[in-house]
């Protein structure tokens, strides 16, 4: 990725309130004001970061600082939630003033225990490493946390890229879930109905996932282009249509696993499963490589290809793009189909990588998680990869956290939502930490648009 792609979104952007409805007769439902800030990263940084000192960079509200502080704030908020739902800690509050040390140590062990387990489950457990060095345990156990993190990250990155790609074209794709479901369905059917030689079968199944998702993304794109139907509404509705279709499909004869009465499909062939990357003891599979390739592909598409240029142009300013002779409708359709394809691939990696059979809950909320991933990644492919890795790590660690510290995995969803909330409202983080405003005041995700 080139350097200006990663440049801070500090350019000569309009301030946060640049899109208020100022009272001119803007027609209802146009997305005209949508894009200016979406394409923020493209604008050359004003002033240039070179002239600034390191401390300056830390104390102004630039994206890096805001992201770091947002994650920190969320962890603090999560800590508060842990503390106030822990009976042992609440018990010490009753005699807080006579022996405050009890409360402090209880809080420390409660929060520290939870976050410690989260870290151990996501990255590395020093104790396991020591045992492995002493030859007391197998080495794969040392790498299990990393393996779990990468396994969880793969579909998150793909659904995140899906949202990113649409977002850069001025579209909000809430349909990641439905597209992932359709991708998983087609990949699954290719996986257990076809019987092909090793590499070919996997490729066919992945292609099926891509096509299934793309078809589900194509519909809202086409409706938007032809009738102006808002993609947010259509994609939300398509999510549930896909979910109901999945629930129906898995109990049909020929799909349902023989001998089972519950809603579960046949297993996909071994040939169609994503290759394990680190032996049979670890779950990590080739899906993460696929996700990285897809990220590079999206970055290339957006920065180097004609279609990508059109997408960014339409996303920034549809009227100008139309004037320049681009077809807005065609771009919308292409963007939504591609975004759907990425989500579909995400669904396919879940199915071919870990689940291996269709169930109604196989996708869960991965599409919605992808939205938070993309928002944390600030609409950039590289950012999306990093955000996907972070949220993948949170997920991996949460399982351990629940086991070791009794803190439910749902805490991760809270953290995820809070991080994105704080990032979406840089002004809030700025106020909390008394950061100085950056010149030109980055508006972050405060892009406003109507239905």
């Amino acid at each position: 990725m080139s350097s200006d792609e990663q440049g801070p979104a500090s350019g000569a952007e309009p301030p946060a309130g640049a899109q208020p409805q100022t009272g001119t007769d803007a027609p209802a439902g146009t997305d005209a004001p949508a894009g200016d800030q979406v394409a923020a990263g493209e604008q050359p940084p004003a002033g240039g970061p070179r002239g600034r000192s390191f401390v300056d960079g830390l104390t102004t509200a630039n994206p890096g600082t805001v992201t770091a502080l947002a994650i920190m704030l969320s962890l603090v908020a999560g800590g508060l939630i842990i503390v106030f739902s822990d009976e042992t800690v609440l018990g010490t509050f009753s005699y807080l003033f006579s022996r405050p040390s009890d409360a402090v140590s209880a809080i420390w062990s409660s929060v520290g225990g939870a976050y410690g387990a989260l870290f151990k489950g996501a990255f590395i457990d020093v104790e396991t490493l020591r045992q492995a060095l002493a030859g007391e345990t197998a080495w794969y156990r040392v790498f299990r946390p990393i393996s779990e993190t990468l396994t969880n990250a793969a579909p998150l990155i793909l659904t995140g890229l899906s949202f990113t790609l649409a977002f850069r074209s001025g579209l909000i794709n809430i349909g990641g879930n439905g597209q992932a479901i359709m991708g998983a369905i087609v990949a699954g059917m290719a996986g257990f109905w076809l019987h092909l030689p090793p590499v070919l079968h996997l490729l066919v199944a992945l292609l099926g996932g891509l096509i299934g998702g793309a078809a589900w993304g194509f519909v809202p794109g086409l409706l938007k282009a032809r009738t102006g139907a808002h993609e947010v509404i259509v994609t939300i509705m398509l999510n549930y249509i896909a979910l109901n279709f999945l629930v129906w499909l898995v109990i049909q004869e020929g799909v349902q696993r023989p001998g089972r009465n519950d809603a579960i499909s046949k297993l996909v062939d071994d040939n169609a499963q994503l290759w394990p990357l680190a032996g049979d003891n670890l779950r990590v599979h080739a899906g993460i490589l696929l996700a990285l390739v897809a990220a590079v592909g999206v970055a290339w598409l957006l920065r180097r290809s004609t279609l990508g240029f059109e997408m960014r142009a339409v996303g920034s300013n549809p009227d100008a793009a139309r004037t320049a002779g681009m077809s807005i409708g065609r771009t919308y359709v292409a963007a939504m189909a591609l975004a759907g394809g990425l989500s579909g691939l995400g669904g396919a990696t879940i199915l071919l990588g870990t689940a291996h059979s269709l169930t109604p809950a196989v996708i869960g909320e991965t599409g919605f998680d992808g939205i938070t991933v993309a928002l944390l990644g600030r609409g950039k492919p590289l950012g999306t990869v990093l955000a996907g890795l972070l949220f993948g790590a949170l997920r991996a660690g949460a399982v351990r956290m629940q086991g070791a510290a009794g803190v439910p995995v749902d805490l991760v969803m809270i953290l995820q939502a809070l991080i994105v909330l704080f990032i979406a409202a840089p002004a809030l983080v700025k106020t909390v930490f008394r950061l100085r405003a950056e010149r030109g005041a980055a508006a972050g995700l405060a892009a406003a648009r109507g239905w």
Partner: protein
Amino acid sequence: MTTLHLDEVAESTTARGFWTRSRKAGAMYLLLGAFAALVFGALAPGGEVARFTLSENSEGLAVEVPAKLGAVLLGVLCAAVGVALLTRLAAHHFGWATAVAIGAFLLSFLCWQVAGDFMPLVRTASGTLFFALPIVLGSLGGLFCERAGVINIAIEGQLLMGAFGGALIGSVAGSVWLGLVGAAFGGLLIGALLAVFAIRYLVDQIVLGVVLYVLALGLTGYLYERVMQTEQATFNNPGTFREFAIPYLSDIPVIGPVLFEANVFLYIALALVTVVYFALFHTRWGLRVRAVGEHPAAADTVGIRVQWVRYRNVMYGGMIAGIGGAFFTIGSTGGFVKGMTNGQGFIALAALIFGRWSPTGALAAAVLFGFANQLQDYLRLIDSPIDSQFLAMLPYIATIFAVAGLVGKVRPPAANGQPYVKG
């Protein structure tokens, strides 16, 4: 079917002059009616009778329709309405024509399904309202926000928080009424976050809605596991509202048991729809809210405090949706279960859009969607060959058709989703 309608769109874009809203709808009813008459008519067994009883069971008065003939005739009626719209005979009665066409289509379908069996209309109507209640309340919650120009796709989150708050407070306080207050508070929490981040921090409201949904999902799931699951008896045992029969009115046949012998939520919902309808369209307050949603700059010029109206409305909306969420716990089953709203909040959003951002429209849409739910239960009961999942898709498909302008394009408040900054 879908491709066919897409073709229609293609035509409509080339010849917009001829294909007015009512003509497009007419063409669709014609096709639906023809489909009903041919397919439902062919599938309905000859000689069998479809009985619609006016009671809770197979007893009592009943309307008996010869299945095959009924399916064909009702399909023809639907098609005839379509033709009337196409030839502009009925263009001035679009609303009625739509109601008759959709009703005839549904009845034609029922003639086929009920053939040789019976359908208890009172129970069907009660069940429809039962399913429609959280949808209506959720829609009204969304309506409050969107009429003032704040998009709310976090309705699902508000319902969840309401369901959770109702169960928790109801259990701890030992009173379902206090549970209702707790539910309103739960919805208010999400509403307040929506308001602050959308109005004060100008965050994109669609993105915000998704994030708040994830937050509500995480928060209720976390607290459920941490607090409720271990001590169900203390924290997740709120009891439920008893059915409340209004004296005299509940004795009216058919209507009485459906409308006047029901859950308190039905009375709340009907009262709210009425109040909100009159408040929104016939009071100064309503005019101000609509002005803020349509043209905040103009509203500001005449001295309406735009931001204040928005804050207040978004919070009211949150409370109403929260009360709607309470229906899932203290209104029906009692205890809270993770993710129990199960997409009903998004159906509420669909009803809001399908009902064209009006309280009565939302009610009608919610009843239609509630009927789709009830029909699923009924068809499962009579072992119908129609799989319930396809019926479950109907509300979503209908909404897509509505926003795509196939049945008359819906138009949101003009300033919906756009923050207002004085200047």
